[in-house]
């Protein structure tokens, strides 16, 4: 069974075809990004482009994209961002949904969270997001990007913050931006200096503690279970849309809210499910 649900930011697929006593269902978020190259004005090989694409932004030196560089950058962006977000989370299926029979036994799979990033030129096809991209000159080491304007060096690992000991906290900006495209906000929203309502771009929103600053939605590269929220939301939507299973329908008292895990949890038997056991190691014979 393959289910599909469309969201504005991505499409979600729930695939039970490979499910077994050892293999979970795949829950894949597929994001299509359309990229537009920004080149120097007038067909020149070099020129300038202002930070944020704003007339008041600082001009930065840019270089005309070649076809080879453009294609290589798109491929690098997509492969590295996909690798960062793919296969990092599992959904603990505490609803008992999507049960399957293996011989005489019934198993309840968890969700294996996959991420597929498909990038192409914005000029053709359907895209969830359209992004302009400038190619910075070699002399430039920074550009004022925003959610729909990236630069060619956004895939580089660079300091984005400093910890309490003055050590740099490094981040590849594009994985942070893809986090936003998955619907994630900054790490410290709701904390002091970063109100939930209003502009959540203030400096405190990126974290004031070392712990928060090192989050991918701060200035670092660390993933936490909160970052699996998009998969969790999709899983809950799929469960809500499912008719009652003829294989296994747990009593309401046995159901709990699904949770994001950052370690693999294998499919459970009904007994394991009802006992609330998390199977993180496969027993012999399973």
């Amino acid at each position: 069974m393959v289910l599909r649900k469309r969201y504005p930011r991505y499409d979600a697929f729930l695939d039970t075809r490979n499910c077994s006593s050892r293999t979970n269902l795949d829950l894949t978020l597929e994001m299509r990004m359309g990229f537009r190259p920004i080149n120097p004005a007038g067909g020149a090989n070099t020129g300038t482009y202002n930070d944020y694409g704003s007339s008041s932004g600082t001009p930065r030196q840019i270089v005309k994209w070649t076809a080879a560089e453009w294609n290589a950058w798109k491929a690098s962006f997509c492969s590295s961002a996909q690798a960062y977000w793919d296969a990092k989370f599992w959904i603990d299926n505490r609803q008992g949904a999507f049960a399957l029979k293996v011989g005489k036994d019934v198993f309840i799979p968890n969700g294996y969270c996959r991420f597929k990033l498909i990038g192409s030129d914005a000029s053709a096809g359907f895209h969830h997001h359209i992004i302009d991209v400038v190619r910075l000159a070699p002399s430039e080491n920074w550009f004022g990007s925003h959610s729909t304007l990236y630069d060619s060096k956004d895939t580089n690992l660079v300091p984005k913050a400093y910890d309490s000991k003055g050590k740099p906290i490094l981040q590849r900006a594009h994985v942070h931006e893809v986090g936003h495209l998955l619907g994630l906000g900054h790490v410290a929203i709701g904390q002091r200096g970063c109100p939930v309502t209003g502009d959540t771009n203030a400096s405190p929103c990126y974290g004031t503690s070392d712990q928060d600053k090192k989050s991918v939605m701060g200035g670092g590269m660390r993933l936490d279970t909160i970052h699996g929220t998009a998969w969790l939301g999709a899983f809950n939507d799929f469960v809500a849309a499912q008719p009652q299973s003829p294989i296994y329908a747990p009593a309401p008292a046995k159901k709990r809210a699904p949770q994001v895990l950052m370690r693999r949890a294998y499919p459970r038997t009904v007994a394991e499910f009802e006992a609330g056991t998390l199977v993180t190691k496969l027993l012999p014979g399973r």
Partner: protein
Amino acid sequence: MLHATPLGRWRSFLTIAAIAVAGCSDRSAAENLQAPAAAETAKGAPMAEQKCENDPTSRSLCMIRMILDHVAQDPDRAGGGISEIKAASSTSYEVALPKEGRIVHRTYSFEVKEGSIRMNAPTERVESF
């Protein structure tokens, strides 16, 4: 008023300012660099103090030097550098610090006393893009 455009002119000015200000303070550059972080206090409280000559140019240079020292020690200094320093009054400056997706506009205010300048904790507003 100092402005970042053209950038080269601004960089040249900062270099000159840094050299000039070194002569108007009774503290070493290393001491100045440590001052803002070491003196982090409650909002509005004095953060650093320097002795300065009383003429307007010396005062401006002292204030800008203290601002630069504070930015250098700022744990949030990562980003696109300084794009603008602008006098908001004779005792305050607005500094633009571009970051990803936003510009942090920081206002530094100073208390001027005979022969010395005291910097208060800066305030910030964010311009998002």
